[in-house]
């Protein structure tokens, strides 16, 4: 192996954004024809490193060698010429262009489009067949699913004759089936002699398809190992820097009285689609009810009704008192006042205002709290600031700076800010939607512990998640939603992923058997 030059070699790469050192003296060697994983928590500097390699950012120091030759990469054009292709986490596609136009953009042959498009169509068809990408060149991007959009990004790189393909968190937006298809494609590419760098924070993917793996932590490359010589627990420990519990540790629930009682709930959306159909369930104090289901089967609407920003018909009782489902008293403010706290599914749209500072976000929804008022007209910002600082310390939000805008925190830390805001109010009911979507391992563990702790304090918790593993690990009771209906309830220790999967696909036990 030693006489072959590595496809990529980085030596001493450093990059700082203001006071934040995103990459510190990073060196790495990737051999040709291998799949190399780079794993690390959100904000560990993986994406920055790859953006440097792709010429998106300029490194402060360090050298890049491509196939043994020292290469300067001042911009993306240089990276493309050096045979590097990148599939970003957020696709860089023009949404109202066709697949063909997107592939050709920037790689045209001449000033006129027609010859370029004709040539590209031919090559695209060939590439698409060769790697089983299954992409229609004339489809418009906004009409196709994320899985296919991602394959278009791969095609873009292949069309530019990339030998080295970098994929940044490629499975974050994919369904499990789409992810499997992606991995098959990556396998094909590897067989063809391409070098692949896979950036992810999911351990399973690393174990499944990589040959070697590098671990990054807080801007530093802490270790590089052969995948065959490591295991998930070991990698998790290297990532986080301490031992991590990969499964939730909890004692059996001690359910008491019914706190939240939902009867015959129906929701019809603006377009007249019947989203939630006659849903009834209850949650007791000291119990977590998990709602499983493929996203878009009415779970979001259910959360929105309970959280107070969607209208519905039916009855909801909180500690025996009926809640208003329409009118002035059905808003989020009133719900919070009555002790229903809500960690929304989409923290960036519904949970936080991204341009506002952490301390301002901490007061949202609870801005009427007397502790936050100096007098009737003026808010006590100093008190909010102090409160936020305490919450950030207790929830280990990094960096613990209440003045920082929400968008400048990593996904996990944003979620911690939201969870801290809601849990610290000591609510009777906590609604949680997708609590760990886009959140790194260390933070997942922490957030799960907080939810379980709240349960053990005798609160009722409604957990909605598309991650079956999370539902199975956290819930004391599991309800599965399909097409707006609850298909059935199971106890976690009396069911398995297979049975739940069938229910999620709308099949009851009778049909499955």
């Amino acid at each position: 192996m030693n006489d072959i030059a590595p496809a990529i070699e980085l030596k001493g790469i450093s990059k700082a954004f203001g006071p934040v050192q995103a990459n510190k003296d990073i060196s790495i060697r990737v051999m040709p024809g291998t799949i190399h994983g780079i794993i690390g928590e959100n904000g560990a500097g993986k994406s920055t490193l790859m953006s440097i390699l792709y010429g998106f950012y300029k490194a402060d120091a360090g050298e890049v060698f491509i196939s043994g030759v020292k290469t300067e990469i001042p911009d993306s054009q240089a990276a493309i010429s050096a045979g590097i292709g990148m599939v970003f986490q957020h696709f860089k596609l023009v949404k109202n262009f066709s697949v063909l136009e997107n592939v050709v953009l920037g790689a045209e042959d001449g000033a006129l489009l027609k010859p370029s498009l004709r040539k590209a169509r031919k090559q695209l068809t060939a590439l698409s067949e060769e790697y089983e990408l299954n992409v229609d060149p004339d489809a418009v991007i906004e009409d196709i699913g994320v899985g296919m959009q991602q394959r278009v990004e791969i095609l873009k790189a292949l069309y530019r004759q990339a030998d080295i393909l970098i994929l940044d968190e490629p499975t974050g937006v994919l369904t499990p089936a789409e992810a499997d298809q992606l991995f098959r494609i990556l396998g094909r590419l590897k067989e063809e002699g391409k070098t692949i760098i896979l950036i992810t924070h999911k351990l399973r993917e690393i174990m499944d398809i990589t040959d070697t793996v590098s671990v990054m932590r807080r801007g530093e490359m802490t270790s590089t190992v052969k995948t065959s010589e490591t295991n998930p627990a070991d990698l998790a420990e290297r990532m986080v820097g301490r031992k991590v519990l990969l499964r939730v540790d909890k004692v059996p629930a001690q359910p008491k009285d019914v706190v939240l009682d939902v009867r015959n709930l129906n929701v019809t959306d603006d377009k007249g689609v019947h989203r939630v159909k006659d849903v009834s369930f209850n949650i007791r104090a000291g119990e977590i009810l998990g709602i499983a289901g493929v996203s878009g089967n009415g779970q979001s609407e259910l959360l929105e009704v309970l959280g107070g920003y969607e209208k519905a018909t039916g009855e909801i009782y909180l500690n025996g008192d009926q809640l208003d489902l329409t009118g002035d008293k059905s808003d989020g403010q009133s719900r919070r006042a009555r002790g229903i706290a809500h960690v929304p599914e989409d923290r960036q749209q519904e949970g936080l205002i991204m341009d506002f500072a952490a301390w301002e976000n901490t007061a949202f929804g609870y801005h009427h709290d007397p502790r936050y008022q100096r007098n009737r007209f003026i808010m006590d910002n100093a008190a909010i600031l102090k409160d936020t600082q305490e919450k950030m310390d207790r929830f280990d939000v990094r960096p613990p700076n209440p003045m920082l805008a929400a968008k400048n925190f990593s996904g996990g830390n944003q979620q911690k800010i939201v969870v801290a805001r809601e849990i610290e109010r000591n609510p009777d009911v906590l609604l949680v939607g997708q609590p760990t979507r886009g959140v790194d391992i260390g933070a997942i563990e922490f957030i799960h512990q907080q939810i379980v702790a709240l349960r053990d304090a005798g609160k009722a918790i409604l957990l909605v998640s598309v991650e079956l593993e999370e539902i199975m690990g956290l819930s004391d009771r599991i309800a599965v939603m399909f097409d707006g209906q609850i298909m059935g309830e199971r106890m976690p220790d009396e069911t398995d992923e297979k049975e739940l999967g069938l229910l999620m696909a709308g099949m009851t036990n009778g049909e499955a058997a």
Partner: protein
Amino acid sequence: MDFFTFVQLGDASVRMAIPLLLACLAGLFSERAGIFDIGLEGKMLAAAFLAAAVSFTTGSVWVGLLAGIAISVTLSLIHGIASITFRGNQLISGVAINFFAAGLTVVIAQGWFAQGGRTPSLPRDARFGSVDFPGALTRVRDKMQASPGMQFYSEFISGHSILVYLGLLTVPLSWWILYRTRFGLRLRAVGEAPEAVDTAGISVVRLRFSAVIIAGILCGIAGAYLSTAVQAGFTKDMTANRGFIALAALIFAKWRPWYALGACLLFGLFFAIDNRFQNIQLQVIWIMVLLIGVSVLMTSWAARKEKIDLWVLGGLSAVLTLVALLAWRGAVTDEIGAMAALFETVKVPSQLIQSLPYLFVVIVLAGFVGKAIPPRAGGQPYVKER
């Protein structure tokens, strides 16, 4: 109205549409690249002034045209530096250019020619004359007596300024550039997803500057046309908000060149009607039927669509209805009663006709013409993540 009147109206529509069309295409190139350009008005005005001033001074209208284009492109570059290089707010930069041009043209004109903020009247040689096609009649009396085909050829096809033909040619040219060239593909891409352009290894900044420079050239021609072809010299605020009407036409046209031609011809027709029919006589009842009819249509449409625009269109309808009632009230005199007044023939106020294009702008902007999706990255400076 005879056929010749229609031909004349069409002819005038085209002439009025040209400056709108050029400005509209200027906006199209700029906005397709993601740069909002509210400064079309100012650029046209500055170009109108400098084209007239230089034409007068040098005696050559072509030098004047070049000067007009030069000043317009200069203003475009200022807009580009503010909004592309320094990532400033595009609306504010555009508004600044409008104020700048509105004030400075008059001040310089006064300092230069001392004729009350206008340029002297341009002699024949310092203007764009009409291009007469072979065999076309030029005298109005001859045209009126000619056959309809000849009337159409002589009045509508022939006899425009060279800039009119040039302006019409820019439509297919723009379409071809946008949809058939590499530059066009990249231009459309940069207004939709600059990050896609950037990661494809193309300079976002260079593309956007090219776009605003094209916008500058087109606005320059539009301005020069106003002061050296339509009029014979520059007068204060002579663009009369055409830059803003062009923006409305751009929305109406959904950012497409051929649609832009249609939209601008429609606005041109309104202007032509206004110019030609200062004196329309109509029975009061017809005025009322028209105005109230339009009001009812607009309001019921807005109500059915349950749009927020109900307030805009409803308010507009209320105003129109009020105008109709006032017209009626004005016709009632001591001699004839309220009913008889309905059938009185009155002169339609010229102000009402003048307001037609602007009324139409409001209706267009209130979303009456269907959904128009602007370029996605429009108005946002491009910043790499973080």
